């Protein structure tokens, strides 16, 4: 079975938000519902200045706090590594929102909690997540971490990558290449 993961190359993100809207369309979200967001950071003083955008979405943690606190089992971790919310089991208590250190869960207009699903229904049909395919600079890479020959596996072995907030031991399945 595949075990999915993602690489985000922070050095390439120009903050355009195409990923946000492509994801909203793919998942039929409302204008204010977004599964990913950007954190802009500025460095230095004029004229020696730089800024960068950090794209953030559900990290599909292997040790997911949202799953631990969910009282109904709605938030769950699948064998293939993807963390999902079962909307029928979700009672909208928001424990997971409080527990998630990445601030990526939203309350949907229908009342349940949702977040990035790694476009899993589409991935299972052989497609690639919408945030990956729409990006003009190729910030994201998605694939099977268990396949040593996948593009993403080869990239991970070649580059020094970091996990976001690795120190809190959430064991994210998204790996960041720093700017």
């Amino acid at each position: 079975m595949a075990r999915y993961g993602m690489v985000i190359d922070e050095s390439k993100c120009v903050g355009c938000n195409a990923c946000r809207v492509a994801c909203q369309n793919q998942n039929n979200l409302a204008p204010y519902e977004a599964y990913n967001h950007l954190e802009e950071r500025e460095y230095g003083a004029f004229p020696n200045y730089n800024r960068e955008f950090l794209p953030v979405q559900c990290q599909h943690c292997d040790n997911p706090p949202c799953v631990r606190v969910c009282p109904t089992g709605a938030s769950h971790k699948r064998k293939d590594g993807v963390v999902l919310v079962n909307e029928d089991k979700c009672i909208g208590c928001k424990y997971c929102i409080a527990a998630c250190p990445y601030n990526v869960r939203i309350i949907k207009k229908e009342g349940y909690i949702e977040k990035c699903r790694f476009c899993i229904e589409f991935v299972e049909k052989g497609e690639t997540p919408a945030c990956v395919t729409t990006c003009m600079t190729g910030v994201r890479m998605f694939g099977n971490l268990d396949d040593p020959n996948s593009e993403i596996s080869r990239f991970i072995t070649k580059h020094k990558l970091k996990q976001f907030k690795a120190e809190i031991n959430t064991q994210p399945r998204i790996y960041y290449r720093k700017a």
Partner: protein
Amino acid sequence: MAEHDYLKGLKISRRSFLKASAMGAGAFVLSHELLDFKSWVHAQTEAPVITFPTFCNGCGNRCGIIASVKNGRLWKIEGNPEANGNLGVVCPKGHGYLHDLYNPQRLKSPLKRAGDKFEPISWEQAYKEISEKINLILMDKGPQSLFWVNYPQSNHQYALRLMHALGSPHYFTHGSTCYTARNAGWVTTVGQLPSNDLSNAQYILIIGRNPAGGINLGQVKCIVEAKGKGAKLVVLDPRHSETAILADEWLPIKPGTDLAFLLGFINVLVKEELYDKKIVSEKTVGFKQLVEEIVNYPPEWVEKICEIPAKTITRIARDMAQVKPKALIHRGYHGAFGAQYLNSFQTARALAIANSLLGNINRKGGIYFAKSALLGELQPKHPAPEFPKMGKLDGTGVPGRYPLGSYGDGIAHAIPELALRGELKAGFVYHNNPLRTNPNPKRVMAGYKKLELLVVIDTVLSETASIAHYVLPESFYLERDEALDTKHSGKRAQVSIQQQVVKPLYNTRPGTQIIIELAKHLGVEKYFNFNIEEANQLRLKPLGVTLGDLKARGVLFVGENWKEGFDKLETPSGKVELYSETLKKLGFPPVPKWEEPFVSPDPRDPHSFRLLHGKQAIHTHSMTANQPYLMAISHRYDMIRLWMNRLRGSQLGLKDGDWVKIKSTVGEGKVRVRLTEGLHPSCVWLPSGYGIFSKHLNTAYDIGLNYNDFLPTYFDPTVGHSMSSEIVVNVTKA
């Protein structure tokens, strides 16, 4: 809760679900995956997805897209990987703007003004009344009193044909507020506007252009590709643009002094003999005169003008010369020298000359002439109208007025003056909104209101539509078959087509159909005896591809591949004109010469700033601000703010997010500030795309400011462009 309790709640598909899962993945997975039952149901009951290749209308780039329709409703778009302009990707505007299809504020039928309101009327009544009024005006004032202005669409040639059929020369684009200085600079130097071979360049210098913000997807993809191969990217821009994020080096130049930088750059190339000697001797004219002028601009002098260190200018010139001809200075667009400063035309000239000295004209990794698809003509089957006998009243191409102006673009922001003077009496505005996108809206409104007849063709009630006598609702771009296009031509020409994805929701019609029907009512039907299908077929004929193939693929490559080098350019001398006899005759400097910006902020006044503007990746002109998906981003990230250098802000006692009042000679307004280290201290920067004042656009109304509110009406002496960064504003804490 035990799993079997959960299963009790399930209805119809439980049995088949259990069966499928058990067969597919085994019992263990079954129990695990049950929790995801709903998504499985979604997948199984999902309606079939039908896809259509077409092109986007979220900005002027007209990117190739594949639109997906589910249950008769538009679902999403993806990039067409074969389209040269966007290479398979889509920007946020493309994804967001498609929702305007279902915008409840869309125009649903033709409208006629009745006092302060509009009343719906039939198409037949609209055409009849409009044509009666136009025919009266034509009889009374002559055909030159009629105009058409549009933001270029694939069908613009039919609008031009209609104006010519009626005898009017007055077809306008938005060019004079956007790019006419850049175009003229290139045309007078190398004979045409070239493209950038970014992906093969080893050194890319971008001056003012921001393809990652004023998005050009193909260019950004090519820059990333070049960088992946080790190319260096340097961005010269007063603001740390989105493209600067990708750059190896950001050089915050003092606004309005890009010409000085280029003169210094050329000075180094000449003084150190770093230029391509073979190209200069064989393919250029006027090198001697260039040298005579350029000695005046050593980098040490330039440093004082543009605040870029002399040694940096020298280093960049040397490094670029080292890898020439695979070194290019981006051809530019709006930013820095499209229609910005009094010196923009000379800046474009200097930029074209600097590239030429690098020997990169029509070379791999340099500046190149894109291949173009030679579409077929509608004649002889459908005879073309005669070219109008009289020139344009705006003075484009007229010696003594705007001699280098582009006749094809005209000077659209002169329309209000011509209307106030009574020279223009009636006009059509199609897919354009001059009340919001032209300088000094009070003046624009006064001009357009003076017209005896204003007809606006749009999908919503924009500012301009709001004051029209008649509004004709165009079908949304995803609802209509349209003219084919060659916009995506690059190393090989490409032809593309816009086609209907969903049926029109309302009583709207495609732009070309509206033009043809207007022509019939106006008595010039003999030039419009075709429909869009036949016109597309005739135009495609010489290319050796069928309309069926094109409709199936959305884009097709046609013609030969690009080749390096050139024999003869389309300039009077056939060579690169470092020195231009044409310019001399017209009384302009024949070789580029330093020229100060027209106005500059007072360096002793802490409240005095130059007002710059630029695009954000999420908005196009004034047309996307009302789109909730895109405006949600503006709010979420507080992007409506005015950028100001942090030090200058603190001198005014400002904190990040504070409200300020900005005031120029023509307007004032309030906005919040973003204090940043990423902006030159002499200027403030306002994102364009906000400041919507049409009350019919709920999402965007009264949010943010627009630079046009502060811009006096200018016409530069070369091409008549709007000099849109020649604004000094006074900024105070509100």
